[in-house]
């Protein structure tokens, strides 16, 4: 198959030391912290009460609105609290979470009836995927059912299964592809059904030959599924760049892959779909790579959602030194977290503890020398140096003209910048600034309307009062006149 090249990109040191390590199940911890929002969209709404006993796989919080995802119990136990807990987010701010005290019995809910999923309709498949709480597991955590539903509105000609895993260190998808290729292929066939599409490509970077051959063996019987080796180049795993690599088509700015008939799902999502439809299991665990120079024994773990990162690290023998930075996700786009007491959620693919040397932290940013390396490296074709200069001067609207909203925040520009300017942060800042302005504008528009309405109301009330006063006066006058008349009458008579 002919592949296309996306512009720019880099090849950072891979550090994939865990490629050979099999997936190890992680024991159920004592306590689980399940944030109500582990996905893009509206937070889920709790359906259990504090003190209630819940079973493994039981619905804890239901989806709220069209773009949302439910949360299920990762194990059986007691709900001890529904409270704020540190979110897996760079801000380190808390988010409402359901906290479960595990009872160690691992008792499953009994409402699971195995069915033949291939007898389901396309709509039923995506409904079940939605009910299982499945979200994009490559990191973005967009509800998978919403994407599977797009088949009803758009004609989808190609489903791309993203096995790129272009982030350094991470091997969770790699291991999943090596160890469970059958279920993945099964899941892909179900996804094809849901999308009413008959061509799927599994794109796997060429640095994962074992995963490629495992998948090839598993999909031999299914001509509609093809494994494609793609060049090892960051950000290959980015949806837009992957579509470009495989099809030569580009997602129109501001649009979706579905607009050009292409849908991208992560391999782990395909696996989760299979688990949900074949075995009726909601998304309650995921595979996480624990790695980095400060971790004693790196590993690939299958982790119940809600387990604290701290426990994963402990399970891996702890830290060999105080890490310079701890992350959820990969080093290019991952989230730095203030401490390890942060739960693993649906989108967490890695827990990394990095040492200073492997981060190659630069002392401090230097002035831009306009070398244009960021321009060469940007996979989108932006001018990072110009955008950052404008963001720095607070001219976020100007940065917008340079394509700020087309930025995919892949961090390639910051990675190559010889002056180590935090370009990506400038863009995040500028995007946040625009969002803030939009919110402020909305509020001020609303309050202006309210103020106007009040003005109108006050005027109306004043007018009414005046009218009422006039009426009363008229009545009084009439009464007086009547009395007068009566008196006169009396006097006359």
């Amino acid at each position, binding site marked *: 198959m002919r592949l296309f090249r996306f512009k720019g990109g880099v090849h950072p040191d891979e550090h994939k030391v865990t490629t050979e390590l099999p997936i190890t199940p992680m024991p159920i911890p004592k306590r689980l912290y399940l944030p109500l929002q582990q996905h893009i969209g509206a937070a889920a709404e709790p359906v259990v009460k504090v003190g209630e006993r819940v079973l493994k796989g039981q619905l804890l919080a239901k989806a709220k609105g069209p773009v949302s995802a439910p949360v299920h119990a990762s194990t059986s136990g007691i709900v001890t609290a529904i409270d704020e807990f540190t979110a897996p987010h760079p801000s380190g*701010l808390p988010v409402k979470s359901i906290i479960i005290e595990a009872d160690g019995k691992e008792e499953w809910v009994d409402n699971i009836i195995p069915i033949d999923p291939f007898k389901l309709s396309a709509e039923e498949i995506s409904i079940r995927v939605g009910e299982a709480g499945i979200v994009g597991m490559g990191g973005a955590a967009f509800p998978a059912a919403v994407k599977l539903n797009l088949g009803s509105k758009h004609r989808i000609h190609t489903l791309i299964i993203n096995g790129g895993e272009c982030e350094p260190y991470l091997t969770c998808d790699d291991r999943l592809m090596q160890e469970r290729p059958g279920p993945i292929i099964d899941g892909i066939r179900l996804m094809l059904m849901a999308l009413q599409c008959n061509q799927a490509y599994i794109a796997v970077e060429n640095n994962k030959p074992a995963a490629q051959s495992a998948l090839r063996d598993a999909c031999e019987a299914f001509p509609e599924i093809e494994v494609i080796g793609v060049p090892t180049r960051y950000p290959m795993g980015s949806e837009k760049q992957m579509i470009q690599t495989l099809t030569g088509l580009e997602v129109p700015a501001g649009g979706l892959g579905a607009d050009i008939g292409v849908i991208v799902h992560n391999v782990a999502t395909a696996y989760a779909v299979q688990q949900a439809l074949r075995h009726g299991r909601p998304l309650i665990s995921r595979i996480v790579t624990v790695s980095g120079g400060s971790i004693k024994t790196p590993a690939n773990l299958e982790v119940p959602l809600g387990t604290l990162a701290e426990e994963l690290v402990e399970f891996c023998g702890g830290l060999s030194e105080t890490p310079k930075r701890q992350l959820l996700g990969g080093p290019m786009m991952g989230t730095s977290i203030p401490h390890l007491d942060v739960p693993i959620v649906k989108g967490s693919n890695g827990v990394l503890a990095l040492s200073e040397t492997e981060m190659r932290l630069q002392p401090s940013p230097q002035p831009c020398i306009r070398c244009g390396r960021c321009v060469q490296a940007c996979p989108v074709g932006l001018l990072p140096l110009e955008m950052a200069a404008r963001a720095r001067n607070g001219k976020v609207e100007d940065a917008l003209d340079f394509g700020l909203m087309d930025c995919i925040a892949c961090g390639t520009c910051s990675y190559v910048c010889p002056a180590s300017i935090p370009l990506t942060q400038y863009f995040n800042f500028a*995007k946040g600034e625009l969002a*803030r302005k939009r919110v402020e504008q909305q509020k001020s528009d609303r309050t202006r309307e309210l*103020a106007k309405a009040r003005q109108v109301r006050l005027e109306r009330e004043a007018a009414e009062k005046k009218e009422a006063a006039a009426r009363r006066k008229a009545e009084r006058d009439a009464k007086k006149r009547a009395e007068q008349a009566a008196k006169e009458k009396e006097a006359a008579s």
Partner: protein
Amino acid sequence: MHAIVALTVLGLFLGFLLGMAAKRFKVENDPIVEEIEAQLPGTNCGQCGFPGCPAAAQALASEGAPVTLCPPGGKSLAETLAKMLGVSFDASAMDDGPAKLARVKEELCIGCVKCFRECPTDAIVGAPKQIHVVMQQACTGCGKCEEVCPTMCIEMFVPPTTLPEWRWPKPQHEVVARAA
């Protein structure tokens, strides 16, 4: 001699052009006042020191009042005004501290409806002898309710940042790229 004639003619011609242009493209002063007023919150809260938004708009347009005068409008309003008026302002110097909102201390509220009557955006709900509540989505933080409350049960507070409202801060190091 030729030069003098030529220059005189040229001068007269250009002067005529300028005069025509001044007549032709004359800018009325008033529209800008209305435009500015349309941008202001319209709550007449008086925090700017002028009696109401129309007066503030007038001051901005003709008396050179600073674009940063309106606390409820915040930095984004200041930027809009600066653009409209073609002036620059120091955004970083502007106290962009988190906007304050009003909140009723329920144990002190006597349900006197004074704040309710005062609120320029009808952000306070309540009825006589009932505890009042401030609807934060509609509150501009003007503080008028705080002034009229007889029991001092209204306090201005800084709402804590929630996750969806959190924004990446600006990088702290001052690095520059010359803008092309």
